[in-house]
């Protein structure tokens, strides 16, 4: 629930706690004035700094008979601004790619919806994560391809190219994660899940399988993307020069795909490099020697994650180029002589 701060006053001698009063703006207790304590810490980075008139997110616990039992400040209010940025994003998308933005947004909404309402609850119920991610990718890739590229030769080629590479690369992932003793327990968030499991209420999770699922999930989108890129190029080239043979088209497709791959490697590894920047800085500050650093499960886990995801891309390019060339020019070529 969102609340607006009415007044705040320091209550303890060292100004570590602020006694605050909020006007609740939304939810069950809308309109009520509630009291909450704002704990301030020595490190200002963790504090929610509020002045009268500011909004904050409140967590209100109710007693059995419905009375307000406790109010906690959960941080700044961000929801409305987040929605504003979402609107700006939609406008930008429409400005650059025109009417196609509608289908892109539909696909994104669908993906987010089944991710939140189906995929995450299924994982939390203790279902095998690899099977869950496989089902999820079949549904989402199918819907994405149909919504964005339509039921065409192009999407058929992209689907064929993606499917094979995902299966090959997940076998590779299984072998290498086992060989490197990646348990998944040191991923950020894993300890919190363990704590929740121990506290009861949720099913035990297999972190190793969850790690494999995370790799497949990270690479799935990229694989579809590369294959659509290659298939799209082959189609454009075929439109421009319809006299090209399937083999020429395939070779050109692999060539452009190779160019894409050349930066795609960078693209993927940069996502992981950017995410692990604080980790590396921490290691340098703590003076962790390189041999120790690289053998941490977190560190080698991130490296393996990025490499295994890249393998999906490597496998995707030739298979999609061949499939697209065959679909666009293969049959005509066969008929001609």
């Amino acid at each position, binding site marked *: 629930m*969102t609340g607006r701060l009415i007044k705040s006053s320091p209550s303890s001698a060292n100004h570590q706690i602020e006694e605050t009063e909020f006007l609740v703006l*939304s939810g069950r207790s809308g309109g009520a004035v509630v009291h909450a304590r704002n704990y301030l810490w020595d490190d200002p980075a*963790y504090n929610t700094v509020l002045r009268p008139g500011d909004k904050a*997110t409140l*967590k209100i616990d109710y007693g059995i008979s419905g009375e307000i039992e*406790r109010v906690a400040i*959960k*941080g700044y209010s961000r929801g409305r601004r987040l929605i504003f*940025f979402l609107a700006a994003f939609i406008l930008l998308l429409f400005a*650059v*790619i*025109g009417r*196609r933005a509608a289908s892109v947004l539909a*696909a*994104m909404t669908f*993906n987010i919806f089944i991710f939140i309402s189906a995929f995450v609850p299924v994982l*939390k119920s203790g279902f095998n994560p690899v099977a869950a991610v496989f089902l999820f990718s079949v549904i989402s890739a199918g819907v994405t391809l149909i919504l*964005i*590229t339509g039921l065409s030769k192009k999407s058929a080629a992209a689907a064929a190219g993606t499917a094979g590479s995902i299966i090959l690369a997940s076998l590779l992932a299984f072998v290498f994660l086992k060989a*490197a003793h990646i348990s*998944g327990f040191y991923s*950020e*968030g894993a300890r*919190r*899940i363990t704590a*929740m499991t121990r506290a009861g209420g949720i099913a035990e999770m297999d972190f190793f399988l969850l790690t494999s699922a995370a790799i497949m999930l990270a690479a799935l989108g990229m694989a579809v993307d590369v294959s659509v*890129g290659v298939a799209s190029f082959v189609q454009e*080239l075929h439109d421009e020069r319809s006299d090209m043979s399937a083999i020429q088209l395939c070779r050109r497709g*692999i*060539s*452009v795909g*190779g160019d*894409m*791959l050349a*930066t795609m*490697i*960078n*693209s993927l*590894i*940069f*996502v992981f*490099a*950017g995410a692990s*920047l*604080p980790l590396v*800085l*921490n290691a*340098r500050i*703590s003076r*962790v020697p390189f*041999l*120790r650093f690289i*053998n*941490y499960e977190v560190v*080698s886990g991130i*490296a*393996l994650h990025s*490499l295994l995801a890249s393998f999906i891309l*490597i496998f995707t390019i*030739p298979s999609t180029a061949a499939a697209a060339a065959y679909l666009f020019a293969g049959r005509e070529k066969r008929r001609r002589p």
Partner: protein
Amino acid sequence: MPFEMRKILLCVLLGACAVFADSWSEKPDIDFYAHPFVEDADDLHEYRTGRVTSENEEFVFSSRGKKYPMDSYNFRVQLFAGERVLCVIEDGRAGVLDYDRTRPLALLIFLFALGVIALKAVSGARALAALFFALLAVFAVYVTAVLKGAPPAASALLLCFIISLVTLYAVCGKGRKAPSALAGAVFGIFSAALTAYIFLAALKTRGFSDENIQLLNYLSRTLQIAPRDAGSVFLAGIIIAATGVIMDVAITISSSLSSIQSANPAISRAKLFRRGMNIGGDVIASMSGSLLFAYAGGALFLILSRSFFTYSASFLLNAEWFAALIAGIFAGTCGMILTVPATAAASAFLLTRKRGRP
């Protein structure tokens, strides 16, 4: 022991931070939690990888022809004869720390290089060289500069410009592809950085839901070491992460356009631009979804663990971790979208201009 005290204090602080990153409803209980780097981070000892063997029912660590008796207890490692482990050598004894993961990692890197070169011999090798340069630039040069006091976000922007210059010229060669891709990429990186900055400032998010940012904040304050502003390191991370995607889109468009132009040299400037926007539209269409997957896959554990503390949609939309996750996706996607018209325009202009000359 002051160092031990520091570790314990750090554990307590991180325990608190790990549970609630935003604010506290009450003083948290002491929750013992330690980041892996805190436990045995130390450059005074000798670290070695080697094989565990069993002699007279005792484990022995053999590394580079030498044998050491072992202290075999570590909660991370289950010792078996034949296992490769990492040990710290102290007074002639080997204390086991962790598994040796360098070999599978090296083998996978080798296979990866082989695969790239098999697919695209010359430019694949060039791309690998560019990647090596980029990683060196980020993790050796840039990190050192930040530790010496360079502003993290501003120097990340400069770093990404340099990396895209080197990478695009390495991948495209001397032709007309590189300058147009570079123009698009520089524009994209700049707009991604700007978008991320505005987003983070407007949503009062500084990445403190990330446990490594928390540790960085703690370490830099306690040890009086740069970077003092962990929030700007978070912004730098977002800029670096977005760079790859932007370079990728820029190169796809400029490479496709130059290929189409060489297949049909008579194509007009406007038509070339339209073809570029067409291809760019396809790339955006699939890429915006796939970026979502890439970030969701990278943060799957985080999302799962946070979902236990998410009581309603309003909690999700207001949570700091969610804003931090969206910041990366939002900046990357916006940068990528803006790269498309920039690259298409630059390509159309450069390709048709040069054609008229000879």
